[in-house]
């Protein structure tokens, strides 16, 4: 896996939204939703994209599907540049890449039967010939996600949240995609149902060799499901590492704070010792974010340098990169001097 060409390669991605005010559309600032993000996804892996609200993880996911306008950067999918695809290329792309949504209630059209919801990609891309083949394919998909084939003739409101999420997954599978972008696919579900969907995603990956981009804020779920994790803060990537490395040896102060703030379901004092809610403040607005390192207003180690200059992403060990001046050998002196 490591030497093969990645399925998806993103470099220096920027998505900025101009804010307009007044009648003449005067520019009133820029929302830097994604501001210089780079990562890749290997074939067959699950890449986690985590961060708190406003960190740009969802916008990044949408940019992969070319659903949000790009300000700058390049996206390569399977070696092909999809930064500015023409119409047929875009349609091809949206067959090979599919999306699973957070909201199991809103993501399915309540007026359509499951048959037509799950089969919509088949219709859009004309993948089956004739009614019978279409129906058969949809029923096969339903069974693949653990539903009964005869449920095809029901409407979404007859299903529970977990079942609807399965329907959404079946729809995403319909066009035989290679990459599935999962945008918080289990965060709206109850714990007992969450596990069903997580297991399903794992099974499907094994069976079909799928690649997932898993966008989530629940770090326990991400740790369970993802092979590699990208931590984002305010539109930037702050740390990328394999699962074990990230959870056992987080290096960026934000990652450390984030992991420390998760309440662990174990009342033992030893376990609870690791809980460290010390991080103060909240994520600043992505409208005109702070200069320098975006995390500096909340960072316990922030120095003058951090306020002035944005840190670069550096690989501090194999497959582990951090964007923090503390870990930049060229900046170590400046940091030490100020500490």
């Amino acid at each position: 896996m490591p030497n093969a060409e990645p399925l998806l390669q993103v470099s220096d991605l920027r998505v900025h939204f101009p804010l307009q005010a007044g009648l003449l559309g005067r520019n009133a600032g820029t929302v830097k939703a994604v501001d210089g993000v780079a990562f890749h996804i290997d074939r067959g892996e699950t890449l986690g994209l985590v961060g708190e609200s406003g960190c740009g993880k969802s916008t990044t996911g949408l940019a992969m599907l070319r659903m949000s306008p790009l300000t700058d950067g390049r996206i390569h999918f399977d070696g092909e540049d999809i930064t500015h695809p023409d119409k047929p290329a875009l349609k091809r792309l949206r067959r090979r890449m599919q999306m699973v949504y957070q909201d199991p209630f809103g993501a399915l059209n309540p007026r359509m039967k499951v048959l037509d919801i799950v089969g919509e990609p088949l219709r859009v891309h004309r993948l089956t010939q004739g009614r019978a083949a279409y129906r058969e394919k949809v029923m096969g998909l339903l069974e693949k996600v653990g539903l009964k084939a005869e449920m095809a003739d029901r409407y979404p409101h007859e299903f529970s949240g977990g079942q609807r999420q399965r329907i959404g997954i079946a729809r995403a599978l319909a066009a035989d995609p290679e990459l599935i972008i999962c945008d918080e696919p289990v965060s709206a579900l109850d714990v007992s149902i969450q596990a069903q969907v997580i297991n399903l995603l794992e099974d499907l990956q094994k069976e079909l060799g799928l690649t997932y981009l898993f966008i989530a804020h629940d770090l326990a779920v991400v740790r369970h499901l993802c092979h590699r994790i990208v931590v984002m803060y305010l539109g930037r990537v702050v740390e990328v590492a394999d699962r074990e490395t990230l959870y056992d040896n987080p290096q960026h102060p934000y990652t450390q704070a984030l992991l420390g703030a998760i309440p662990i379901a174990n009342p033992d004092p030893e376990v609870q010792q690791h809980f460290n809610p010390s991080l103060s403040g909240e994520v600043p607005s992505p409208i005109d974010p702070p200069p320098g390192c975006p995390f500096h207003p909340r960072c316990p180690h922030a120095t003058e340098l951090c306020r002035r200059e944005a840190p670069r992403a550096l690989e501090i060990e194999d497959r582990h990169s951090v964007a923090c001046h503390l870990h930049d050998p060229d900046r170590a002196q400046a940091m030490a001097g100020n500490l």
Partner: protein
Amino acid sequence: MNMKADVTRRTLLDVQDLHTVFEKDGNEVHAVNQVSFDVKEGEILAIVGESGSGKSITAMSLLRLIPSPPGRIVGGRVLFNDQDLLDLDDEQIRRLRGRDIAMIFQEPMTSLNPSLRIGRQLAEPLRVHGSVPKEKVRERCLELLRQVRLGDPEKRLDAYPHELSGGMRQRVMIAMGLACLPKLLIADEPTTALDVTVQAQILELLRDLVRANNSSMMLITHDLGVVARYADRINVMYAGRIVERGTAEEIFHHPKHPYTLGLMESMPRLDQAPGSRLTPIPGQPPDLSDPPPGCPFHPRCRFAEARCRSERPPLEQITDNHWKACWVDTDAKR
């Protein structure tokens, strides 16, 4: 960290056989079905359950905040300081709300009136209950905002809700809840809408303030991590009933009810090695307008026996600090 359940503590709230039904499409939904529990003075009691388990309805029933119709409290007693809240008339219960028992809701975005300044809203419970002389209201508001560690309180008093972030708004809600120093604070999913790092700040704050005021708190949540950290005792609810109750140690280290066991196994946990497969609870929670006979959990239960399908198990005490509603000895069968 968690106080041991202390038998010597006085009981502040004693709920007995609370039963709330909702009318839905001509069917009766037993949202809260003969629920009994108590809250001791100074403790943090958690009610854990998934959506539809009846945990929020339980909390709202205590203060008689059930929208009626379609909801109705059909039975039970809610003894607060030995007075049955279900017997009070509307005026009496209104005077009690916010003064003796306050409630904090989930959505910090919609719980504040967008067209009124923070100071005005914060002062409302104080004015209504007349607990502070008029000229001291502003002073008390400032003090409250300082208590919830909202920076720059003078300025915040004159701000409108949209000028505050989600976490700040939730701090204001907590300040409103604590304004009259209630003896019991009911927090219904107080941090669900917030980011993890903010959630941690808010929960720590809530616990500290409740302890400082010597109040009790009923924490209603679906998050077992939150429960493990903050609760002294835990009630696990399923399908409108309490299925297990105990101290935090008991519930997390020696869960006895198959549902609680299932929750623990189905949850990816940060305190255990990753990679092992999760064991989900099969099936779906029951439709409460047509609940299964016997134990409401039996259709999803791997231990279910013939008796579970016909007879509903009562909530029975099994050790000093542990109750469960289950016929099966899960330890022996595991």
